[in-house]
């Protein structure tokens, strides 16, 4: 078996290349920090395994996810390193390439996004690059599959021993060379390591690589450990960096060729002048989100959803009921299937059009390159309250699912900032909450659906930011890290990438319908059909009514006067979609129209809004609680997250309902 390690800077298209090389699909985004754990895949009909590692700027890890890559090199015997670079940013990308070339394994450098480079009016002579770097260099354009076939053929058809082993020896300053020789000789002689590995290890050690220094201590490499102070005192790290930079500049100058015009770069900078404008940037960001909700709630999503619902509550429910009757199913089984599963699970599935439209919009924003700008624009707001714009990326990912949002927080270097981002992530409105928003906005704000949903989303952001500021003061976070985000050039979103992104995210929703939403629906059916006396025909005597009515006095001050809503909130802890399916079951209806009419009698617009705010902020779902626990490594923070969010949700919906009631 041959192992190919895919390594490169963040946002160079590694994951896209990985998907194409392995005929598989892993989540792709046009921004930093998408790959946080390594992914593996094999090239079809071969024994070649490709490992996609998180993007790194150097082998010296700064963040938790960056250490995955260096640890992989130290712990695994990789056969070939496929270094993916952004051809447009070669000067910075080659800094990592040098470290990989020094590692001594065969290296292939893929100059990805080569079309973007050509559009800037520059091109590199590949032969010159190959000669200077001493490895194979291929050009690719993963987005439209250019060069992928050649790269795959190269990997498939050449045996590993035919690949030239990288043999890059930079002309480091004399004092470094002297120490390098000394240490390498001793390591080879006394510790039985290969000369190449010893050289690489020494350079990395001189370069203050934390993981390598731990590795050296662990193996008690005295020739290195004894010299650590000298290396640091003599500032070897800076000298190594300068030598590498000079080498890169010389290499690029000798390989550079000028080609045609630079229309794309001009277009990108023209668009950026507007969308990242200090004054216009934020309103544009809000407007884009508004447009997204308009599309999913008013223009495309809801009309489709209504048709699906009419089909489900009409023909499907009636036919199922008649069929079950005809085969002799008893009333309780019919109720379980029709009022429980079809109403609950089916009811949630009818929201698929809205969810898909929203996911498609998010995918378009990611693929076009706008998301990185959104992070930049929000960075200004975040800076104003003393936060880092980098925290915005996990937060925006949290719009899809809080679990992935929290995982993405690993890209934040500072442990305290990472903890803060983890704690505020659940306040971001994940897509699972959409069905319940959709039901309530259709009932109470039919003309302003998009606007109300937008306000809920932004309220989530505001609460998240306010809490972040609060935690910052409590944890005494003083140092402010600099936020660097790479702004990719804009490109027209590709249909297949958008479709795959949308499908990948929506698939999760459909799967959940068959598992946890199904389970939650059956649970609420049981609770609403059984009471202390056994099977009940009157729902008011059921367990769910008892639970809801017991807690009702607590919820009246926030405008909730129906015990059904309270019981539904409980099942929402399993997964937020279950709130909607529980409502369907508890109100005994398969039709959204009937449910909406029932809501009209139980809520006022202001109490409905207060409930939506409560749903936005109260307890994270099971999966999110579990992730908070595993990412912070403490049960304490998970429990804290549950209780603090209930408190915040209650306080805010209380204020909204009480103040709102004064005016309405």
């Amino acid at each position, binding site marked *: 078996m041959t192992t190919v390690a895919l390594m490169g800077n963040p946002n160079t298209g590694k994951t896209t290349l990985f998907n194409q090389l*392995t005929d*598989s*699909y*892993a*989540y792709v985004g046009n921004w930093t920090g998408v790959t946080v*754990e390594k*992914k*593996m*895949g*094999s090239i079809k009909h071969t024994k070649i*395994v490709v490992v996609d590692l998180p993007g790194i700027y150097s082998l010296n890890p700064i963040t938790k996810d960056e250490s995955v890559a260096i640890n992989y090199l130290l712990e695994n015997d990789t056969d070939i390193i496929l270094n993916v670079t952004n051809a447009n940013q070669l000067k910075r990308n080659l800094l990592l390439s040098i470290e990989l070339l020094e590692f001594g394994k065969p290296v292939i450098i893929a100059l990805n996004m080569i079309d973007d480079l050509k559009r800037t009016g520059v091109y590199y002579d590949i032969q010159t690059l190959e000669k200077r770097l001493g490895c194979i260099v291929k050009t690719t354009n993963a987005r439209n599959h250019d060069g992928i076939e050649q790269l795959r053929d190269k990997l498939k058809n050449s045996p590993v021993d035919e690949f030239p082993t990288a043999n890059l020896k930079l002309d480091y300053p004399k004092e470094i060379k002297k120490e390098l020789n000394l240490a390498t000789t001793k390591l080879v002689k006394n510790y039985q390591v290969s000369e190449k590995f010893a050289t690489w290890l020494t350079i990395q050690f001189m370069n203050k690589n934390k993981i390598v220094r731990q590795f050296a201590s662990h193996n008690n490499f005295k020739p290195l450990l004894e010299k650590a102070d000298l290396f640091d005192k003599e500032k070897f790290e800076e000298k190594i960096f300068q030598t590498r930079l000079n080498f890169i500049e010389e290499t690029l100058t000798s390989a550079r060729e000028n080609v045609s015009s630079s229309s794309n770069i001009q277009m990108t900078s023209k668009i950026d002048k507007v969308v990242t404008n200090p004054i216009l940037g934020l309103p544009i960001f809000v407007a884009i989100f508004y447009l997204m909700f308009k599309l999913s709630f008013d223009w495309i999503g809801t009309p489709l959803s209504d048709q699906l619902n009419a089909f489900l509550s009409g023909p499907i429910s009636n036919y199922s009921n008649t069929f079950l009757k005809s*085969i*002799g*199913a*008893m009333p*309780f*089984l019919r109720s*379980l*299937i029709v009022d429980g*599963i079809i109403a609950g699970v089916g009811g949630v599935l009818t929201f698929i059009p809205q969810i898909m439209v929203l996911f498609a919009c998010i995918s378009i924003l990611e693929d076009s390159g706008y998301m990185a700008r959104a992070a930049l624009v929000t960075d200004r707001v975040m800076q104003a309250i003393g936060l880092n714009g980098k925290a915005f990326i996990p937060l925006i990912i949290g719009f899809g*699912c809080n*679990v*992935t949002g929290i*995982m993405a927080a690993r890209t934040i270097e500072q442990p305290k900032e990472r903890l803060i981002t983890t704690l505020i992530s659940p306040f971001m409105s994940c897509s699972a909450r959409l069905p319940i928003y959709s039901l309530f906005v259709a009932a109470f704000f039919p003309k302003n659906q998009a606007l109300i949903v937008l306000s809920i989303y932004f309220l989530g952001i505001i609460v998240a930011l306010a809490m972040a500021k609060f935690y910052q003061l409590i944890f005494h976070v003083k140092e402010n890290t600099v936020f660097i985000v790479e702004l990719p050039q804009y490109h027209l979103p590709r249909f297949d990438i958008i479709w795959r992104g949308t499908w*990948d995210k929506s*698939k*999760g929703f459909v*799967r*959940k319908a068959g*598992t*946890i939403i*199904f*389970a*939650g*629906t*059956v*649970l609420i059916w*049981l609770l609403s059909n059984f009471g202390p006396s056994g099977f009940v025909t009157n729902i008011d005597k059921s367990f769910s009514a008892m639970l809801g009515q017991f807690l009702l006095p607590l919820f009246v001050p926030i405008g909730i006067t129906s015990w059904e809503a309270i019981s539904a909130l409980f099942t929402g802890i*399993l*997964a937020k979609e279950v709130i909607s399916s529980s409502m369907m079951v508890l109100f005994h209806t398969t039709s959204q129209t009937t449910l909406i009419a029932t809501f009209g009698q139980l809520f006022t617009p202001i109490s409905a809004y207060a409930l939506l705010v409560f749903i936005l902020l109260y307890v994270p779902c*099971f*999966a999110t*609680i*579990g*992730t*908070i*626990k*595993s*990412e912070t490594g403490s049960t304490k923070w998970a429990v804290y997250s549950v209780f603090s969010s209930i408190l915040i949700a209650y306080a805010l919906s209380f204020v909204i309902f009480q103040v709102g009631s004064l005016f309405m």
Partner: protein
Amino acid sequence: MSLLTNLIIASVIIGFAGYEIYKVAQKSKKGKCAACDYKCEAKMMAERAKRQNG
């Protein structure tokens, strides 16, 4: 359909639901990627690779 068949079908549905809730609780304890509700390509490939190597 006899009472027994009715009861069996209902029990299967409820049993499956109970199992799903149990599974979610177990997965949530693991956190991270494992808590994700669907098996994406990457996860399946990682599992396959684990089986092959282990």
